[in-house]
């Protein structure tokens, strides 16, 4: 793994350039003092403090020494001192970082606390402190920079040691009685080596820059020795005469520092995941037009498709040609296993699909608005508050940093341009409508002060801030416990009765849908496989619908036998079989099922997409399924 990462980092263009620069610098560090060492010391009394000339491309310093040679020769000293400081830093950091694991509990805590305290101070302050203690000069500066960086490296070691020492193999070694030092040397360090090497590389860049800083201040390398920082400090005094004398060592420091830093970061980045590229999907051939929806439809979708770019190129269609009609005031349930595309269908209808999704449809009308092809601003303007959403997870669907009342009032303030006070008064009123106790007090609380059920009520109240024509509830009860589930369903039903809004209830639980809805739409693998009135569930024709019904336990279920399940799993959207997607799990499947069936009438108000629709009535305790309905 480690070697692969280094290789991958070198294939990355940034990493390759950084590594190339480092090799170049290393060669320069070895060769430059040998070739140009004497030339860099040679004073030229005829050319003191000159700008660029043909003899001295970067000019000369106050003693007439060639700046270019001095910058090149200084490579060895600058790099060497930086690496020495890095070595001290890594060594001290390792000792400090591992000590807590070796020492007893109390002493270990003391070391950790000391490191934490030291980390709070910026490195330069620590370096200045140590520079005073160890004295001005190269030796003092190496020690100062090395020790100043040690606390943060120690923190890194501690974090990594803590992460690894929780793993099984360390626990096993401990149980086996492996001695502490052996445990560290053989089990801990080898497993945290990688992040430490990466960080030490970045650290070397930091040490180089810090060293240049100290030398620049005159606290590092002392004359007659010189490194880049020293040359920079000397050059800055004469920047008006010869800017190159200051810029050249500065550029050298930046290049060397960046080479270390970028190499380390590109290694670290190789492990990360790259974002998916945004693309346009190929146009879909239009499917056969479905029957036009009636004019009283509050939602009409024909051949709705939602596509995502696939990781390996191409597109996947989690929603693949769904047609759905919801009349005014109607309550429709959409059921299916997770991954059937039901939630994505709802999001696409409400124009809330993720950014990477590509939504197409032959026809899409929501509350009298055709949103496809319009800009976001137009959709916001037209849809306004006509569609209310209730999301699955009430714990994450509220903004944690805003009070509940403000989140509700926001709707009215934005869409009806009402003031803060009347909007909040309406929010309190709507919270009362959904039976949140003490709504005045509750409106001033934050979401984390609400229970899950209360939050879901507040979410419904948010949809009621104005009069929605369509309420889409996406698994509104899944995250709640059973008694709260019933209350929330009851609430949705009451709201529907009072406002006359149509409700689309999405659920994986056909029993929940049966309690609330008039009509059921069953989805499987991105398609609608059956549509039927709740009353006709007993006459369900599609084998998948029947299997879903059979998996609902009721009071008559034999407790001695295992609960009924549907064998197999729904196909991955990227890898759907040709023809009927349910065929691999269907006991009635034959060769005909290799062609995809389309929705066809199998009874009054009932359509199924199946070559072998079942006609035998189901032996179901229907009351258990449609319990709340009766």
């Amino acid at each position, binding site marked *: 793994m480690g070697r692969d990462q280094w290789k991958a980092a070198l294939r990355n263009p940034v990493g390759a350039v950084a590594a190339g620069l480092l090799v170049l610098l290393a060669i320069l560090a070895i060769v430059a003092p040998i070739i140009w060492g004497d030339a860099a010391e040679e004073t030229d009394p005829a050319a003191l403090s000159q700008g660029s000339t043909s003899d001295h491309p970067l000019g000369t310093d106050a003693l007439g020494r060639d700046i270019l040679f001095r910058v090149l020769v200084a490579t060895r000293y600058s790099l060497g001192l930086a690496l020495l400081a890095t070595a001290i830093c890594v060594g001290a950091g390792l000792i400090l970082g591992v000590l807590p694991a070796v020492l007893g509990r109390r002493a270990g805590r003391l070391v950790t606390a000391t490191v934490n305290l030291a980390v709070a*101070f910026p490195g330069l302050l620590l370096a*200045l402190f140590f520079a005073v203690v160890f004295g001005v000069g190269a030796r003092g500066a190496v020690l100062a920079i090395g020790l100043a960086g040690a606390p943060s490296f120690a923190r890194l070691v501690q974090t990594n040691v803590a992460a690894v020492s929780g793993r099984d193999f360390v626990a096993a070694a401990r149980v086996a009685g492996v001695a502490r030092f052996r445990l560290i040397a053989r089990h801990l360090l080898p497993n945290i080596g990688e992040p430490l090497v990466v960080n030490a590389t970045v650290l070397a860049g930091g040490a180089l820059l810090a060293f240049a800083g100290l030398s620049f*201040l005159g606290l590092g390398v002392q004359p007659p020795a010189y490194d880049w920082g020293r040359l920079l400090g000397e050059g800055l005094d004469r920047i*008006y005469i010869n800017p190159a004398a200051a810029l050249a060592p500065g550029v050298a420091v930046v290049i060397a520092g960046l080479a270390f830093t970028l190499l380390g970061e590109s290694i670290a980045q190789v492990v990360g995941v790259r974002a998916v590229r945004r693309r346009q999907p190929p146009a879909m051939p239009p499917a056969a037009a479905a029957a036009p929806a009636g004019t009283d439809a509050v939602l009409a979708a024909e051949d709705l498709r939602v596509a995502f770019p696939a990781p390996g190129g191409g597109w996947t269609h989690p929603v693949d040609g769904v047609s759905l009609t919801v009349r005014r005031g109607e309550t429709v349930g959409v059921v299916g296993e997770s991954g059937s595309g039901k939630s994505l269908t709802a999001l696409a209808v409400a124009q809330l699909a993720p950014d990477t999704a590509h939504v197409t449809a032959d026809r899409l009308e929501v509350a009298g608005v055709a949103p496809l092809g319009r800009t976001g601003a137009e959709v916001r303007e037209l849809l306004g508050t006509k569609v209310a959403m209730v999301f699955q997870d009430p714990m*994450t669907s509220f903004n944690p940093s805003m009070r509940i009342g403000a989140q509700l009032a926001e709707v009215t303030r934005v869409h009806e341009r009402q003031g803060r006070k009347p909007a909040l008064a309406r929010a309190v009123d709507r919270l009362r409508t959904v039976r949140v106790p003490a709504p005045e007090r509750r409106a001033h609380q934050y979401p984390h002060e609400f229970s899950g059920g209360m939050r879901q009520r507040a979410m419904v109240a948010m949809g009621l801030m104005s009069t929605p024509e369509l309420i889409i509830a996406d698994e509104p009860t899944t995250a709640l416990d059973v008694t709260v589930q019933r209350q929330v369903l009851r609430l949705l039903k009451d709201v529907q009765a009072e406002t006359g809004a149509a409700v689309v209830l999405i659920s994986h639980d056909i029993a929940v849908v049966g309690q609330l809805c008039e009509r059921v739409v069953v989805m499987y693998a991105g398609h609608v496989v059956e549509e039927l009135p709740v009353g006709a569930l007993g006459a369900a024709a599609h084998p998948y619908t029947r299997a879903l019904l059979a998996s609902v336990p009721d009071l008559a279920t034999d407790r001695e036998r295992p609960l009924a399940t549907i064998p197999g799993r729904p196909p991955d959207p990227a890898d759907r079989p040709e023809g009927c997607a349910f065929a691999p799990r269907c006991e009635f499947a034959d060769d005909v099922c290799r062609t995809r069936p389309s929705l066809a009438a199998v009874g009054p108000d009932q359509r199924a997409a199946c070559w072998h629709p079942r006609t035998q009535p189901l032996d179901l305790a229907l009351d258990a399924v449609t319990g709340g309905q009766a």
Partner: protein
Amino acid sequence: MTAPVAAPLAPTRTRVSAWAGNPWAGFLARRLGRLLVSLAVLVTLAFGMIHLIPGDPVRASLGVTAPQDLVDARRAALGLDDPIGVQYLDYLRALFSGDLGVSMSSGVPVSETIGQRLPATASLAVAAFVVVMLVAIPLGLAMAVLTRGGRRRGGELGFTATSAVIAAIPEFLLAVGLVFVFGVSLGWLPVAGRGGASSYVLPVLALALGPALLMARMVRVEALAVLDQDFVRTARAKRLPPLRVYLRHVFPNALTSTLTIGGLLLSSMIVGTVLVENVFAWPGMGMTIVSSILAKDYPVVQGIVLVYGAAVLLVNLVVDVLLAVADPRSTIREG
């Protein structure tokens, strides 16, 4: 007779229990305790600095040619011949009365020197911090919005690469580059000394540019993570204008780490003034500490290290309190 005794007791007890039950009180007590411990360590280190120096600091300061009786007299004046415990107590006592000692080279009280130099350094650091915040937050948010969901890969790459490179250049090298471009080549701005508003431009820019880009990257990453959360979808479902979604729903939830990073950056910028002041001949504490280190004027160095350290600790405290205010759920409980 019992009633008058019982009456004043009752409110006291409720007050105590109210304090004990209040998570804020506990948090503040813990945090102030940590500050005091840190300050104590800082003071001890500043005191110990002069004793950690190998050899005789007075001899080092006055030079090898100084007569022995002068050295002895100076040692006695500084109290260096007393037992170390006595010296420490004297140091603490003087510190609490605002006496930071006297400069070895000029004889001026250290507190007076710091009083003269602190405003220049503080104004530089504060100005740079304000610039960082004003640039980084809008830039980071805008980049997050523009590059969300893998859009504008080119723009994203350009932004991250540019900001990474510039943020990796230390402030004093940036300062040299700025001096060259705006001072030497263009002659637009003064390159040395503290004068009118124009003298602030280059030092503040040198100090703020790297941190601003670094922080903009952090804000972007943080805002991208928030953009993916459910409550942002809820806000979109409310059909709120995008600006409102970003400012009311996304930004406040990206604030926590912005504050953390902001605090770290402010601490490092306070100390970063040392280098920038030396490039621009800015008459602040940074110039003074470097010349004092070179002159081995230890009382001045001690005093300035104390001021820098205390400033860093105070910034950390303020950031922790702000974090607790911004996200009362996590910070207070964890402590």
